[in-house]
């Protein structure tokens, strides 16, 4: 597609439930990133993929969060046993490759609300 596509755009769930957020990067971009943005804050890094492998997952807050990118394109961010503090906008970004200018192209985000 023309840009980074994220689904769903909005997700409301109950505390304790499992959630999956999907990201479809720009075609041909090998690097994919997940960030989380809380209200009134800048985005915070979660995880970065180069191809199929997670090159840096040091931003994941705890083991309830997990992300995959099995075929090097679409990625899914998975959150288990959601908590109210997980409520945020989850942004996905892609870039041509990690060694390029580093400019990231962001999707519209998935707004997660945990009740």
């Amino acid at each position: 597609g023309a840009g980074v596509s994220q689904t769903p755009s909005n997700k409301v769930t109950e505390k304790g439930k499992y959630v999956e957020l999907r990201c479809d990067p720009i075609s041909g971009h090998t690097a994919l990133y997940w960030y989380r943005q809380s209200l009134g804050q800048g985005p915070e890094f979660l995880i970065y993929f180069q191809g199929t492998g997670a090159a840096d997952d040091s931003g994941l807050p705890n083991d309830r969060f997990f992300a995959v990118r099995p075929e090097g394109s679409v990625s899914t961010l998975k959150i288990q046993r959601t908590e109210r503090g997980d409520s945020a906008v989850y942004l996905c970004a892609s870039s041509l490759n990690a060694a390029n200018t580093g400019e990231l192209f962001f999707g519209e985000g998935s707004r997660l609300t945990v009740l």
Partner: protein
Amino acid sequence: ELKVEQNPLFLSMQEGKNYTIYCNYSTTSARLYWYRQDPGKSLESLFVLLSNGAVKQEGRLMASLDTKARLSTLHITAAVHDLSATYFCAVDQGRSGSRLTFGEGTQLTVNP
């Protein structure tokens, strides 16, 4: 831990005026990015600054980078209402992969 600080965090200005947003960061070597975010929308890339002394301009916005001072500026010339948005600077330490550390953002309101 890399720290990125923007100021001001809130800026209200009149159309036609000039102003500068500052971005200070704590690492010695970095690539610096400026993004714009409209309410409820994602981040739009404005500028990529890759080396000391880099200056880029697009319309009424001009960004510069001084790596020795660990400072980037975003200068607004003759502001117009359409520039109202939140502006973020982000720093990448240049390691493999673009792990960006963002500032808190500057919420700019341009009044007619």
